[in-house]
């Protein structure tokens, strides 16, 4: 039996299950908060108030949204392929949640004991994230294909092209950090940022990662797979009820994952002023700042045209990321 990945540090099984539940619970709490923050902030960015009718300051708005989605009928078009149609949102949300496992919230023993505050610390680290990122695309692709609708199909085709071209730039942008840290494990990478955060030395990489991250999560200005204005919602057009809700949630979890990876790779992970035990809090704060930036950009930039998107990815981001990797390699080697 060949070893596929070395798990650097592992605890008893029951602790791992407990950790999985805690991380899952925490992140699932963040999703509605992000949803609300997004709607409130978008409102402010557009000189509006945002939702404020459900509960105090509209705090119960996400709950109302979910209740509405849950109570809706599960329908499918006549041309849909039923099993693919059912499985697509599941793939989407499964891959999104699975990637959460590698985001480090704290070191081993931060909160006492020998427990590492992360789901799992694997030596392949970000490769794991890319593996699931690549799988996530099947969710969108199958969703669009199985709907049997033109708009969904167009959205799926776009997402296929977009995700493939931006995944390369995303990977290359993180390669610089991996070279500097000498490891792919996210925990090791955070350890390598003892003296300075990698955003200083890898600023170009950070910029590329941010832009490619927008494309990976299908967020504005790269929300072509959804493109509500032209494609009525793209791959999720024909989905209703909680199936649509799953896609929606997967998108937000993906945002959190990208923010988490950026936090660990560029922003020093759990490092921040104050005692070590506050580490997870710092991770959450950095994730939230990154998410606010996501929303800020969404409020600012219009959607790119399809050919602009492709030429930007292949002609600008990819060469830039390659040059960044080569320069980093030369500097580290000498």
């Amino acid at each position, binding site marked *: 039996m060949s070893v596929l990945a070395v798990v650097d540090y592992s605890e008893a099984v029951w602790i791992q299950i407990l950790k999985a539940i805690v991380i899952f619970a925490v992140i699932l709490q963040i999703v509605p908060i992000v949803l609300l923050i997004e709607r409130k902030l978008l409102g402010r960015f557009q000189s509006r*108030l945002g939702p404020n009718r459900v509960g105090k300051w509209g705090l119960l708005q996400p709950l109302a949204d979910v209740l509405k989605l849950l109570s809706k009928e599960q329908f499918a078009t006549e041309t849909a392929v039923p099993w693919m149609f059912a499985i697509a949102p599941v793939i989407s949300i499964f891959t999104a949640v699975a990637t959460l496992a590698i985001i480090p919230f704290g070191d081993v023993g931060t909160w006492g004991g020998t427990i590492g505050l992360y789901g799992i610390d694997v030596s392949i680290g970000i490769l794991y994230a890319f593996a699931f990122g690549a799988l996530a695309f099947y969710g969108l692709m199958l969703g669009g294909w199985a709907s049997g609708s033109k708009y969904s199909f167009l959205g799926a085709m776009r997402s296929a092209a977009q995700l493939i071209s931006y995944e390369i730039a995303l990977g290359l942008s993180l390669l610089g950090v991996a070279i500097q840290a000498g490891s792919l494990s996210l925990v090791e990478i955070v350890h390598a940022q003892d003296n300075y955060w990698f955003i200083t030395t890898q600023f170009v990489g950070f910029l590329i990662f941010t832009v490619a991250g927008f494309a990976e999560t299908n967020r504005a200005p790269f929300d072509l797979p959804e493109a509500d204005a032209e494609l009525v919602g793209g791959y999720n057009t024909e989905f209703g009820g909680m199936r649509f809700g799953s896609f929606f949630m997967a998108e937000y979890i993906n945002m959190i994952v990208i923010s988490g990876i950026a936090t660990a790779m560029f922003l020093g992970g759990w490092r921040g002023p104050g005692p070590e035990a506050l580490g997870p809090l710092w991770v959450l704060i950095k994730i939230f700042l990154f998410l606010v930036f996501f929303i*800020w950009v969404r409020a600012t930039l219009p959607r790119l045209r399809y050919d602009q998107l492709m030429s930007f990815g292949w002609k600008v981001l990819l060469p830039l990321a390659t040059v960044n990797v080569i320069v980093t390699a030369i500097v580290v080697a000498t």
Partner: protein
Amino acid sequence: MTPYNPSPDIIEVQRGPNPGGLGGAYRTFGATLRGLKTTLGRVVEGPVTLEYPEQKTPVYPRFRGKHKLHRFEDTGLEKCVGCSLCAAACPAECIRVVAAENTPDHQVSAGERYAAVYEINMLRCIFCGYCELACPFDAITMGNDYELSDYTRSDLIFTKEMLLADHPERTPLRREGE
């Protein structure tokens, strides 16, 4: 071949630099940052929203809203004498007046006749204010209320009783200089 010599009334269009290249990337980056600054400025400014059912847009004093029919304050008699001039002036033909004779023991208005039926179809009314201008006795004026929605069409044909009723003013007036 004469050299190209545009006449003075031809304006040559100044075109921006071509997109692409390093300059283009630099300009795009700058424009993106400016855009981010612009949207952040809206957050700093704060929202301009009026929360409608609680807050209402104040109207100008001469704003033409829901019609009112008036009575004489001292005698309580209706000012309207059923002359139908308002109906004649109405371009939308939304006013229907049926006049009847006043009798000594049934004195409704100050004149010889009174409006037995006075109806305004609010769905047809265009709020031009011609009825107000046409009225020789200032019996009909335009109020300031603009909340005129209802569930059925027939409910929006306002009768004389509804127009005469002393409704509390629900619309805030714009103050001087506002």
